[in-house]
């Protein structure tokens, strides 16, 4: 429980008598000041009014209005912002399905019970969970409910004129005065001209000039909040219409952007196959070089692939290079280079020497030195020694840089092709490729396959260097590891519309934010009235949104110029404080008027 003065310092009643009295006096003074300033002090921003949560009169409409006012208040916006940041935390600590599926699977295995609980509350999908969505949707409803009335209010302020001078200018935070022999009308004219030249919106209201500047602050603030909405919609749009798929392509081969060509494919809820951007490309070559020494030995230095692509069905062919950070962009689609590996060319001949298979076999890397594995499948055209139709399968293990037979390891020592070795083990029988179940090209279904046996009765296997041939047992044929090792590149094709809107929104957000935070909205009034002694008293006052060094500086500047046009007259010194001298003890004292109080903090 606390009472809060307008400036927000809190005092708890009953802490000590002095403090409570002090607080009360301050609160009263604050209210007094606001009443004094009246219209002049209001409307300097379009921020929603802070009203205490009075309970509404009964009735559905009353409650609905009350609820709406709460939702669009600054206090609730602040709470929702804090809730949003709090709610985002678990997603960074618990593995997320959308980010790293393998880690989620890993977690499920290790914590079975916890995983069930997490599933219930959506902790594996925090950013699409009900509670997370609820928070940001509420926030954005609040934002819209806040932005719309503020925009109208701001338009109204732009249409209207700066409010006229308050009765007692001395009450304003920045004030100066002097006496001059110039005619009051002349002074006002001069002030009007000066303020307009400084790009204030100024007009004459009664005996004073009223001027205001810095509307861009409000405009910037509104633009920033609007841009947030645009960004959110663009992001949601992108997610709904997004598609993303992968394709592994060996040097020399190509790709056309249709669903059937993808190795795997995912898409958003509203994605339609017809939306796929039409394009195609051929992979000319892949180039990789690797760090040869030092602690990061083996990490890639160049890593790029050359493509010939064409947009549309019959587009013109163009050549481009795709690197890790430099995708190829076609319309809303981007083609990323995401992985790389080797595809040794293997030739298989039957017992009579007839070529039954000759192709580059892409193998999947197992580690960062590209130790790779895969299978060679001979599906058609092979007849065994007895002349019977059969299928052949080979488990393939490949290292681009073999450690040597004495190294004691089969793992690759380096990612480049320094000492390539291909190890094959051989099977024959039925690969069950026609069973209707889609098969991975990197795995072999061995249920109907028989091992070839070597002379010891073990599985027949051999290590080959490029150009070497191994002869299968019992005249079953030969396998040649050709002196031709191609490379393959893995591509990810991502199509995400709305990126342009998100980027545009982001740029507007930054610009608006800068305007909102760096520009001061402020008002200046200049009053000139003739006194009974024929001398004119000029009063100038300024009001900014916050106490800032710039408002006094600017007023001093303006006063200096105006003073030159309406020089001071000798005589009794008008006092800055005299009108409210008998005020409460909290009235500010001004020992050195030029010293801006509390000014250790300069603009950074």
């Amino acid at each position, binding site marked *: 429980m606390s009472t*809060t*003065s307008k*400036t927000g310092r809190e005092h708890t009643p009953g802490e000590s008598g*002095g*403090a409570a009295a002090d607080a009360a006096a*301050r609160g009263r003074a*604050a209210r007094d000041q606001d009443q004094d300033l009246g219209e002049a002090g209001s409307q300097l921003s379009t*921020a929603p009014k*802070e009203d205490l949560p009075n309970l509404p009169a009964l009735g559905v409409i009353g409650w609905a209005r009350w609820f709406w006012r709460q939702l669009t208040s*600054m206090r609730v916006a*602040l709470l929702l*912002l804090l809730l949003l*940041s709090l709610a*985002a*935390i678990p997603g*960074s600590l618990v593995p997320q399905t959308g*980010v790293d599926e393998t880690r989620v699977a890993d977690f499920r295995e290790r914590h079975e019970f916890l995983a069930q609980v997490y599933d219930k509350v959506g902790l594996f999908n925090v950013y699409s969970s009900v509670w997370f969505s609820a928070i940001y949707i509420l926030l954005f409803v609040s934002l819209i409910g806040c932005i719309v009335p503020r925009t109208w209010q701001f338009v109204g302020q732009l249409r209207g004129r700066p409010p006229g001078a308050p009765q007692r200018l001395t009450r304003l*935070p*920045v004030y*100066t*005065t*002097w006496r001059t022999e110039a005619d009051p009308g002349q002074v006002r004219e001069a002030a009007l001209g000066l303020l307009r030249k400084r790009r204030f919106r100024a007009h004459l209201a009664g005996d004073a000039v009223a001027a205001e500047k810095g509307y861009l602050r409000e405009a910037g603030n509104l633009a920033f909040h609007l841009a947030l909405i645009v960004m959110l919609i663009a992001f949601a749009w992108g997610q709904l219409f997004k598609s993303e798929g992968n394709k592994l392509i060996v040097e020399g081969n190509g790709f056309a952007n249709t669903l059937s060509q993808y190795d795997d494919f995912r898409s958003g809820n509203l994605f339609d196959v017809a939306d796929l951007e039409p394009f195609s490309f051929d992979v000319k070559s892949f180039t990789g070089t690797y760090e040869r*020494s*030092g602690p*990061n030995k083996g*990490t*890639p230095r160049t*890593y790029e692939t050359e493509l010939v692509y064409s947009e549309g069905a019959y587009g013109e062919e163009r050549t481009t290079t795709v690197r890790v*950070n430099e995708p190829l962009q076609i319309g809303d689609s*981007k083609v*990323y280079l*995401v*992985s*790389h590996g080797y595809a040794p060319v293997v030739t298989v001949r039957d017992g009579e020497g007839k070529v039954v298979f000759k192709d580059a076999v892409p193998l999947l890397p197992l*580690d960062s030195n590209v130790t790779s594995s895969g299978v060679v499948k001979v599906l058609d055209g092979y007849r065994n020694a007895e002349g019977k139709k059969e299928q052949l399968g080979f488990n393939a293990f490949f290292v681009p840089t073999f450690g040597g037979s004495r190294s004691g390891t089969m793992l690759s020592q380096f990612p480049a092709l*320094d000492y390539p070795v291909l190890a094959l083990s051989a099977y024959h029988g039925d690969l069950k490729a026609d069973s209707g179940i889609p098969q991975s090209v990197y795995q072999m279904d061995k249920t109907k396959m028989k091992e070839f046996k070597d002379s010891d009765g073990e599985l027949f296997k051999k290590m080959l260097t490029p150009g070497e041939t191994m002869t299968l047992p019992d005249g079953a044929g030969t396998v040649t590891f050709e002196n031709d090792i191609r490379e393959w590149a893995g591509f990810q094709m*991502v199509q995400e519309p709305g990126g342009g809107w998100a980027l545009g929104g*982001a740029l507007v957000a*930054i610009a608006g*934010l800068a305007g909102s935070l760096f520009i001061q909205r402020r008002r200046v009034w200049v009053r000139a009235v003739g006194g009974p002694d024929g001398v004119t008293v000029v009063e100038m006052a300024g009001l900014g949104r916050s*106490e800032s060094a710039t408002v006094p500086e600017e007023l001093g500047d303006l*006063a*200096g110029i105006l*003073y030159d046009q309406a020089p001071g007259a000798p005589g009794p*010194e*008008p*006092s*800055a404080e005299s009108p409210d*001298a008998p005020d409460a003890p909290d009235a*500010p*004292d001004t*020992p050195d*008027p*030029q010293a801006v*109080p*509390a000014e*250790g*903090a*300069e603009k*950074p």
Partner: protein
Amino acid sequence: MSLAAATDLVTATSLAAAKNESLAEISNVLIYSAMAVYTLAFFAYIAEWIFGSRSKVARTAAALTPRAQAAKKTAPAVTVKQEGGTAVLERPKVVVRAAAGARDVPDGPGAHGGDAQGDLYGRIAVSLTVLAFLVEFGGVLTRALSVQRAPWGNMYEFNITFTTVAVGVYVLLLALKKNVRWLGLFLTTTVLLDLGLAVTVLYTASDQLVPALDSYWLYIHVSTAILCGAVFYVGAVGTVLYLFKDSYENKLARGGRPGSFATSVMERLPASASLDKFSYRINAAVFPLWTFTIIAGAIWAGDAWGRYWGWDPKETWSFITWVAYAGYLHARATAGWKGRKAAYLALLAFGCWLFNYYGVNIFVSGKHSYADVGLGALTAIGF
């Protein structure tokens, strides 16, 4: 690649490596030297505070006592100065009054407390800080030359760059004649701790970046991230001091009598209103840049990883930090949240920033920090 070409490549890289290693050596020497100079500066700041404690200032107490206030009222707006017999009217003076309800406490004189010897040590400390900054800057520069890229490929480099920029911000504010010398002791203390951490725990031998990290968006993104961090840090120091000074003023206003040590230190700091305004301005000034940093990071991620936003832990914590700072800015515009509550939010937001840097790199694995097989290692880096 043919074998001959490969051998050529090996010799070329090892020659370059030798040259780079000597540069890296120089860099290490410079960083250690900078630490030594920062230590001297640290002691000089301590001396400034100690000598400053001899003077007895009690401006805050005076301003918060009603009787003292009543004594000095009203001031002339225009003064007349006699100059060679003719009266010259000076320009009208601008009277500034604090907002109603705000305390009108003058700023403290600074750590030296008006003591001449303290002031001398303070000046020495500032000179030493500038010297240390230059030496450390040299260390960062040679490190960058040795790896032939921007010096933020790993946490060690990030730390040395971060502290250099933080001290750079301080030196810049001093050069702009801002009243910030009171920051000196707090800054050098943490800079020393941070550098100590860098050279012991986080040290990484120099090396080049892997291609995934080699993009100009990285340069934009990480350089602004470091700058924002450094400025947020300076703002956070201001906020902490604000909280202390504000409790001190509250205590005085309630008629309490703070201890002599607290009095001695607090009386020399700027008024709580000034500290509050200082940290607000610092934070508000970098918030747009932090927004830009996140967007630049998203653009980079769009090019490098195929999505511009994917809730990777680093991205998530940048977002959390951003929302927390937005909350702080909102709090200042919301009745009942200004002052201390807003200050706590600012500290919370900075805590998020710190966690994003240290916590996420050390405790949480994500795209920013783990090796992605097939793409080559994305080494653990700052951002």
